[in-house]
């Protein structure tokens, strides 16, 4: 017994150490020989990394973004790269779990020695690493999240897409203008995405017009009671901060009740291709057949990138060409457009950062402002503001594509800041396809 106990404990210790040694052998730092101005930069390569939900609940749709960005990087690499260096983009799966994000980002920074973290996806996931990246002085650029939390307080971190507060204000201003005197209902996801959106809406829509606010949690698909309450409130317009699956459920639940209000839906939950597919799939499960594109007809939404259906737009033409060459297996939808556009912005920033950029050169370049590129509205990047896009246009879904209605609007994130028409015009995509 005595000896066996000691041996037992020693066996445990041996197991631990053996495993550690094995783990240590598994990979030594592969940073490589560098004429480096910064970690991750060699004579021939710029290594960047990201955390993405490639599996798990957030994967459908969102898992298309990183391959699409990579497709654009491959296009850039084939056309001379960035001052001769090729971009290598390593994106690891975090399954949308913040603990895993913490782990894979440390792997990218500490072991793979990436130059920067690019387009890390998700608010709760990215919050798990934002302090770490800033204290390690790793550039953390163009976070794939509409939280306005990246705008201030983190010197290394930059947002990119239109944040939910600004988007809410623009949707709200449109509703106030076009549906004056009508009864408005809110339907929103009960987290930072929905709550920020509602906050922005509330800055614009008079509270006397709002007759009902109903929320849902993404884990519970039974939204029948919420929709019934919206109908009972007499709402004529429903503004929805929902992900695509819940936009589809909302539309179907209203249909079931024989209720047909005007829907105004956040950009996040209004991609017509995704929505039509979901509507058909859900209806089929319920034993009904619907025409997805018929049901999405008339949904009002907004967009901060050119509309996919606009084949004459030079940006859409460029990204379609890159998609067809490097990412043809994925559908050319909103997620792919997003990925390619944010990839383009990164290349803009790297070119501006200089021939042999340090890490600080990249953040300095972005803080100095970036040209608009594929975004329909300008960026607010400055030394004090790292938010990203400032505006969007309003649009209506017609025959499965979003058709722009009226001008691009810009605003800020404050309650009092006005929503104004953007007077500038978006430059066309360069014919080379390179910024």
């Amino acid at each position: 017994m005595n000896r066996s106990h000691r041996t037992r404990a020693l066996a445990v210790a041996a197991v631990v150490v053996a495993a550690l040694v094995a783990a240590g052998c598994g990979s030594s730092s592969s940073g490589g020989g560098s004429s480096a101005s910064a970690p991750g930069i060699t004579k021939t390569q710029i290594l960047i990394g990201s955390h993405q939900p490639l599996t798990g609940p957030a994967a459908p749709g969102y898992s298309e973004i990183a391959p699409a960005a990579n497709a654009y990087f491959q296009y850039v690499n084939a056309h001379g790269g960035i001052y001769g260096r090729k971009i290598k983009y390593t994106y690891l799966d975090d399954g949308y779990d913040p603990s895993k994000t913490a782990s894979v980002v440390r792997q990218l920074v500490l072991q793979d020695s990436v130059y920067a973290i690019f387009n890390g996806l998700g608010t709760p996931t990215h919050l798990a690493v934002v302090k770490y990246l800033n204290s390690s002085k790793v550039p953390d650029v163009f976070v794939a999240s509409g939280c306005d939390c990246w705008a201030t307080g983190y010197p290394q971190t930059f947002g990119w897409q239109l944040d939910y507060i600004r988007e809410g204000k623009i949707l709200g201003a449109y509703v106030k203008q076009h549906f004056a005197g009508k009864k408005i209902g809110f339907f929103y996801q009960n987290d930072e995405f929905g709550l920020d959106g509602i906050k922005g809406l509330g800055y614009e829509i008079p509270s006397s017009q709002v007759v009902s606010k109903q929320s849902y949690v993404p884990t519970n698909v039974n939204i029948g009671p919420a929709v019934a309450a919206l109908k009972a409130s007499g709402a004529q317009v429903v503004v929805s901060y929902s992900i695509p699956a819940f936009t589809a459920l909302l539309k179907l639940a209203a249909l079931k009740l024989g209720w047909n209000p005007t829907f105004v839906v956040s950009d996040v939950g209004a991609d017509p291709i995704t929505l039509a597919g979901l509507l058909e799939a859900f209806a089929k499960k319920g034993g009904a057949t619907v025409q997805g594109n018929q049901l999405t007809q008339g949904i009002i939404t907004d967009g901060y990138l050119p509309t996919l259906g606009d084949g004459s737009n030079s940006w859409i033409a460029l990204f379609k060409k890159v998609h067809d060459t490097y990412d043809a297996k994925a559908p050319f939808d909103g997620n792919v457009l997003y990925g390619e556009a944010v990839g383009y912005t990164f290349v803009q920033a790297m070119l501006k950062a200089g021939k042999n950029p340090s890490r600080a050169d990249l953040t300095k370049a972005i803080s100095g402002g970036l040209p608009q590129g594929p975004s329909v509205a300008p960026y607010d990047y400055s030394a004090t503001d790292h938010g990203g896009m400032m505006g969007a246009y309003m649009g209506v879904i017609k025959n499965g594509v979003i058709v722009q209605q009226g001008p691009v609007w810009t605003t800020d994130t404050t309650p009092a800041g006005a929503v104004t028409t953007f007077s500038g015009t978006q430059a066309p995509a360069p014919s080379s396809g390179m910024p």
Partner: protein
Amino acid sequence: MTLLRHLAAAIVAGALIWAASVQLNAFRDYQLAEIAVYVVAIAGLSVLIGLSGQISLGNGAFMAIGAYAAALLIIHLNWPVWAVFPASAAITAVAGGVVGIAAARLSGPYLAGATLLLAVALPSLALQWPSVFGGDQGLSITVTAPARLGATFPLTRWQAWVCSLAALITLVLLANLTRSRVGRNWRAIRDDPVAAALTGLNVGRLRVLAFVVSATCAGLAGAMLAFTTTLVSPGSFTLSLSIALLTGAVLGGLGTLAGAVWGALVVVLVPTYVTDVATSHGLSSGVAANIPIAAYGVVLVLVMVLFPNGIQGGLRRLAGPLIPANLTRFTEPDRHQPASKQAGGLTSPDRRRPVGEHQEEGTK
């Protein structure tokens, strides 16, 4: 005396871990801390299932309680880590007791269902009171290495040290507990609750106690996770965490401490290693991302087919002639025939019956 032996072994293990941590790169140190977190969580679950014969699919929720307790103590009271860990564990122990009182009346699939409910429902409480728990975004804490270690000292190594130390202390305490009268009583109620009750054991109380011990470990693991990742948010404590703990416990070998270490190694290292291999072989990201999940499944199937008693059981079987078989298990060696003869799980089915089968009579 047993305590002294366990302590000596832990000190040896600690020295070896220290030596390893200095050699490893900063990311491997981080993984070392992660492994320590899972060792504690899986050991707690393994004791519950392997010794007391109860099952829990809710230990991920107990980890959430420990993690939130730790984050709140650090944010509002600025407690040092050596105080935060035991306090978080104690708070979770109370929660474990409450759940345990209900759980002791259930068994088998009913107990699994009830604890499953806990795993699903509890983390969403954070969304109900966002002002306290930070909602979806969670609570962020700041962790720094002590200044006297120097400015360039890697934080991950400090995290690895603290977590490894906590894990070793937990293992020593568990090793002693399971070898004590309490451990024997647990085995008695696991094998035959009616007979155990007839000998005067309080079956209900013992079951609650096992739940408390298991929850305490989970709470400590949660606090360690908060200390390691520096963020506590509901997304980290999904049902899949509870399932991963159960998988780790079963893979490693239920009811053994070494098994908990094996289980933790598999849970932490296999996904990273397989992703590295998959991406370095030029697989597309869509395929590479799913390979760890597939590999996890393959490992699980293989271990269950080849070593029904988990990795530890398998090793014992393979090394049967070399090492006395009673090493590294909680089960007393003198309960049955000479242990080396029944080291393979297939030959001692009575010890590893599926949880629940043998409890039916006792609870009706």
